[in-house]
């Protein structure tokens, strides 16, 4: 009886990881092309942009919030970076400014949520619309390209280290940092507590306001970082960059088993969700399933993942 219980706990606890293993096995059996190392690496590299955004999204959702503005923040900060590079600002400085700008944009969401007492969905819907609009105004609706040949910028999106593309390294390193903060630090506990019961958290002396400023700022930061990888890969930035990315990120978080009510979830789950979605995209492309059907399959996978999660 007890053993049985443990078993079902393991399935619950690592449900999305088990699902990922099955998915990878299935796709590998079906398609010899899928199972090449080259393909797996490119799959992971493709997933890194959604991965970074989803990490930031996870901490926001853990507090019981949501961040719809990530795609627009990504576009706005990417254009800012591209503009600076084109104007001759040295790449390290431009990159730094882009990341700070991401934090600032995220912080604005925090201010709306905390000080304006606006529900996160609405607050970030406002900023999603506003940031996209500002990106359009800033670029006059046109892409910014010919960004010079900064090695650092190219390295971010196109470089390799020990044979593994740099975006994957970035994703792994950020994953480890997020995991450490969420599992092993006071800030992590405060984040979970805020989503779990904000009244109890406040009465335990936790500053809910600080936690919220922080998570939205983090989400802005990861969106900007993801934007840098995109700009590096594309060699340009355009005002429509990243539209719809918020939904991919939310889907990955949901597939990873994080509760949309906040308080429960893991960054490992999100990483798994990101790779599940990327594998589906990649695998179905290789097998040659039409993109119309792909959407339906993705929807079914998300539905199944959420249904099988007893935490929902």
């Amino acid at each position, binding site marked *: 009886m007890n053993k049985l219980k443990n078993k079902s706990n393991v399935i619950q606890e690592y449900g999305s990881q088990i699902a990922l293993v099955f998915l990878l096995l299935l796709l590998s059996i079906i398609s010899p092309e899928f199972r090449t190392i080259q393909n797996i690496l490119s799959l992971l590299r493709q997933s890194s942009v959604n991965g970074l955004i989803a990490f930031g999204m996870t901490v926001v959702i853990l507090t019981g919030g949501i961040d719809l503005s990530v795609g627009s923040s990504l576009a706005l900060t990417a254009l800012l970076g591209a503009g600076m590079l084109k104007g001759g600002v040295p790449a390290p400085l431009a990159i730094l400014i882009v990341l700070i700008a991401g934090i600032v944009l995220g912080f604005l969401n925090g201010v709306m949520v905390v000080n304006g007492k606006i529900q996160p969905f609405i607050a970030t819907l406002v900023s999603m619309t506003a940031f996209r609009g500002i990106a359009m105004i800033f670029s006059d609706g046109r892409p910014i390209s010919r960004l010079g040949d900064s090695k650092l910028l190219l390295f971010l999106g196109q470089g390799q280290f020990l044979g593994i593309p740099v975006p994957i390294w970035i994703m792994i390193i950020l994953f480890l940092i997020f995991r450490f903060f969420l599992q*092993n630090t*006071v800030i992590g506990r405060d984040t979970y507590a805020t989503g779990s019961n904000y009244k*109890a*958290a406040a009465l335990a002396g*936790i500053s809910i306001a600080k936690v919220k400023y922080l998570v939205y700022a983090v989400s802005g930061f990861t969106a900007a970082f993801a934007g840098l990888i995109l700009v590096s890969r594309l060699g340009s930035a355009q005002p429509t960059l990243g539209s719809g990315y918020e939904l991919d990120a939310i889907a990955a978080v949901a597939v990873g088993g994080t509760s949309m009510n906040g*308080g429960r979830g893991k960054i490992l789950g999100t990483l798994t969700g990101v790779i599940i979605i990327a594998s589906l995209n990649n695998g179905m492309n290789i097998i040659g399933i039409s993109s119309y059907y792909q959407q339906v399959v993705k929807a079914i996978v998300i539905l199944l993942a959420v249904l099988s999660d007893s935490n929902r």
Partner: protein
Amino acid sequence: MHIEMTNISKLFGTNQVLFDANFELQDGEIHALMGENGAGKSTLMKILTGVHQKNSGKILIDGKEVTYKHPIEAEKNGIVFVYQELSSALDMSVEENLFLGREITKKFSVVDKKAMCATTNEVLNRLGLEINPNETLGNLSIGQQQLVEIAKALLVNTKVIILDEPTSALTDKEVDKLFSVVRLLKSQGVSFIYISHRMEEIFELCDRVSVLRDGRYIGTKKISDTNKDDLIKMMIGRDLGNMFQKEIIPIGKPVLEVKNLTKHGLFKNISFTVHSGEVLGFAGLMGAGRTEIMKTVFGSFKADNGEIILDGKRINTKHYCPGDAKNAGIGYIPEDRKEEGLMIEKSIKGNIGITNYDLITSNGFIIDKNKENDLSKKAIKELSIKCTGINHLADNLSGGNQQKVVFAKWLYTNPKVLILDEPTRGVDVGAKQEIYSLITKLVKNGAAVIMVSSDLPEVLGMSDRIMVIHEGTIGGVINKDVATQKNIMTLATGGTINE
């Protein structure tokens, strides 16, 4: 309706919560069901109404064996469970709530508002309630909401109503109203199963009482044949002894001074001092502003005026928040542990951790899992929290054990002042006594304790001095030696006492 439940057993997973329990309800009686939290009262009633399924045993209703698979089935057969936590749509009207899920409709499923309002009026009249059917439910007092819930039961042809702790959130006046409604319905042939911890109510209202302990049936008695001590003995399996275990502790220096604390619309000119080694009781009617005063002292509400002085140092109330209060050495145990005291879906460990970062981190930032586990193990042992271990979810603990977890959150922060808001509400007698001895231990170690409570025997038994709050102002202060229930109530209702 005659109900007979025999040899009912129930397991949740491997955890057996009922062992061959019995219960019998006669036609037209008010039957109290008593027992400590976790004794299995609610589970037994949920089995009767089909919320849970029994593993073994028999349920006979009017001689026929029945097993309800769903509460709706029980409801159709005349048995209605009115839950402790009301399950109403607060944004909808009284009438809409009464007919939720069983609306009267005309053609094409169009609701017949007129017919429903008429029936609502009829039912409310039958109960002698003056409530407007169109009023939004959330605008009614908790007591009125409770009565609406009972009115809901009358819409179907109900013969048995199960009330689970119906008075835990009601004012005295509302309790009186509830009782008169219960008696009225009894005279109309409705039976009641009344789950409650409150002895006074049982003796005032009920005809017979059955007691469960640890999932086992202990016995049934006529109310006229038993007394309070007898019932307590049945419930906890031993004599209670001295409930409060109040000890004489020398009162030390002043720790917390509050001067002219005011928050417009809630309370004004509240001044008091609490000393090391002292329990300062706060009595008053519900809604008198006691909780608001305490939340202001703790920094959760902002004061409009006044001073808070801790250890002789004035606290800057401008940017004062609970975090500052905690760092200064003030702890606060809120009145509603599920809403404000606990993260219900987290473990004991997770709950205790968030107020004790100093103890579970090595540098104030990175959590040391060993220290964290040890702290929770220590708490479970020292407070004898009944659980399966540090990872036991707070939600699955009994009320008394949940409250002990909330205490544990603050105990190890070594507070100079600990504010307790209704520390034993919804807690069974055994756990109550343990909480009182915790309070005594705290003051013995030099802490100052402020205890807000509506339980007068508790206020009288534990306090050194009693502040009585009346409509947001200090009605008076009474010393322990001269305090009686009567003079507390006089001050609480705005009267004066001559000493």
